[in-house]
């Protein structure tokens, strides 16, 4: 079932959590709301769930498929909600937790004891926790608790699954496993799913579409590749992945003055200062540190002109070729640069002939 939220505004006292936000989630898709804390992503999710309601009189409307649910309370929206800290009923067994939603139905729609027991067993199998019916939440690990919470949410046959930082309270390894499992699971049952996260890696890996939020507004909506490769704003490029922000003067191609230009560390190429392969556009920088633990080596550098710090990510083979040490001078080429001049978006690529070179000279203390 598709979700359509139109013109959502929500304030808490004088604080605006959502400022005229509209969002559409196609049926069967897995969409992530990504943003820093305080960006409004959780509030938006809770409004979709019916746990919060938009400001009255703001013209906000929420539709599930074609039905308007703006004023429908959570219990009658047919949503499954999973909380960051599980919110399992601590005094109930796993079985009772899962059956809670079924038993809360009106008597006429309530299945018999035997059917409920079967349903619990099926759901536990689905979340790979067979046989744990009689355990209490306190006897389970974090990953198990979150899967019980998911089974409990699915027990009421929701049309929409909403997850609020579902992996936020888990440790790194469990988080990765569970993330992969959720992806497969969602593909299998094809339920429209929205999840909130502040972890960009999680959003990019898991979602069909990423909704980047900041400051009570949506900055960009797109599939993971799109938001990563074609960020719509300085905020998006800074929030998604590592990026060097270089406060430079004018870009040579456009001539207009910029606040800053952005270069991903893996788009920074390093070359020996005195060599034939040195690119004629290259700038000079001084090596400060070399971090070589990991798949790639990270080199932190400082422009020789204005002492602007930035980072390069090069392969370890390239690092040993260059034999860089702190204090060495290197030639730097930015292979791919992004600029955001007043609402426009400019991309420059060294290999395609359009090049932007920041003028290190003249901006900082020379």
């Amino acid at each position, binding site marked *: 079932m598709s979700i359509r939220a139109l013109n959502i505004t929500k304030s808490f006292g004088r604080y605006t959590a959502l400022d005229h936000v509209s969002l559409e989630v196609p049926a069967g898709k897995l969409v992530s709301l990504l943003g820093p804390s305080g960006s409004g992503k959780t509030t938006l999710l809770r409004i979709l769930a019916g746990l919060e309601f938009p400001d009255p009189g703001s013209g906000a409307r929420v539709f599930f498929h074609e039905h308007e649910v703006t004023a429908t309370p959570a219990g009658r929206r047919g*949503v499954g*909600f999973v909380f960051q800290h599980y919110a399992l009923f601590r005094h109930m067994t796993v079985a009772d937790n899962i059956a809670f939603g079924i038993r*809360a139905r009106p008597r006429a729609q309530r299945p018999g004891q035997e059917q409920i027991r079967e349903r619990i067993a099926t759901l536990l199998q689905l979340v790979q926790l067979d046989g744990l019916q009689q355990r209490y939440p306190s006897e389970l690990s974090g990953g198990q608790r979150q899967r019980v919470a998911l089974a409990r949410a699915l027990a*009421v046959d929701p049309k929409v699954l909403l997850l609020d930082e579902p992996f936020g309270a888990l440790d790194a390894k469990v988080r990765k496993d569970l993330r992969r499992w959720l992806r497969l699971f969602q593909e299998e049952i094809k339920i429209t799913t929205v999840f909130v996260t502040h972890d960009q890696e999680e959003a990019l890996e898991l979602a069909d579409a990423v909704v980047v939020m900041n400051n009570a507004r949506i900055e960009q909506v797109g599939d993971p590749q799109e938001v990563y490769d074609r960020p719509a704003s300085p905020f998006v490029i800074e929030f998604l992945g590592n990026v060097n922000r270089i406060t430079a003067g004018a870009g040579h191609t456009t001539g207009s003055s910029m606040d800053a230009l952005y270069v991903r560390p893996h788009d920074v190429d390093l070359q020996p200062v005195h060599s034939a392969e040195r690119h004629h556009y290259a700038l000079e920088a001084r090596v400060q540190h070399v971090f070589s633990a990991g798949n790639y080596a990270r080199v932190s550098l400082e422009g020789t002109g204005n002492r602007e710090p930035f980072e390069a990510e090069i392969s370890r083979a390239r690092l040993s070729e260059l034999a860089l040490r702190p204090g060495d001078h290197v030639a730097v080429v930015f292979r791919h640069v992004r600029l955001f001049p007043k609402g426009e978006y400019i991309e420059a690529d060294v290999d395609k002939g359009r090049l932007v070179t920041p003028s290190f000279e003249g901006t900082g203390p020379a």
Partner: protein
Amino acid sequence: MASIVTRIRGEPLRKSQSTTTEPAWCRRLMIGTGLVFLLFLLLMPLVAIAYEALRHGIGLCLATFVDPHARSAILLTLTVAAICVPVTMVFGLAAAWAITKFSFRGKSLLTTVIDLPFAVSPVIAGLIFILIFSGTHGYLGPYLEAHDIRVIFALPGIALATLFITLPFVARELIPIMQSQGREEEFAALTLGAGGWRTFSRVTLPNVKWGLFYGLILCNARAMGEFGAVAVVSGNIKGKTSTMPLYIETLYFEYNSVAAFSLASILTGLALVTLLLKNVVEWRMTRRPS
């Protein structure tokens, strides 16, 4: 701790470890002081009550409970407790629920007002009710007189005064528990389609049941033992408005110390049972899966 650890390892206690634990003489002095206070202020009076009650034989002691005035005092005390405990429970649950699960105007005022009975002297609590309900000079006096309703020097007054004193017990116990548990379980119940009552009875109440029980035990003990506020409003009419604590005092001033102490041992016994229950509940609360 340090000394335990070293003993397990089989090493002798060395002087250098005294930085982590007090010197032996200091520990003994502190424990000793504590024990002496306990002995003189708590244990001896308890023993003395039982001793005084039984000094002239168990027969005389039991004779106290044949006294119709003593019986009426016990009955009155039980009646007052039976009124106060449920009312305090309902109020406590409602107040704690409202304060911890919702935000509304005047919330901090309510939180403060709940503590008022703890801060006000019981005598003043009694006087407030005289001021409002007294037949001769209370604000509502003329109205009550006209309708022949007796509040002061009667059961309603005693119950009201006791209620005032015991009102915070359950709420005070529940608020921190509910605050630490947060609202997420209730939200989860709502998304699963449960209504308000089902959410309260199946989720909220079971989560606080031991805290609630603990509050009720304390409330009951106080309701039975309250002296100051009740003394002001009851008029202490023997056989009519004299509660157990009041009647004990009366008996004592009439030099009937056997009867006074016999009745006092019942209150004391009740206190001991309360303490026992309290410990059982505390044990359950810590053992309960969190």
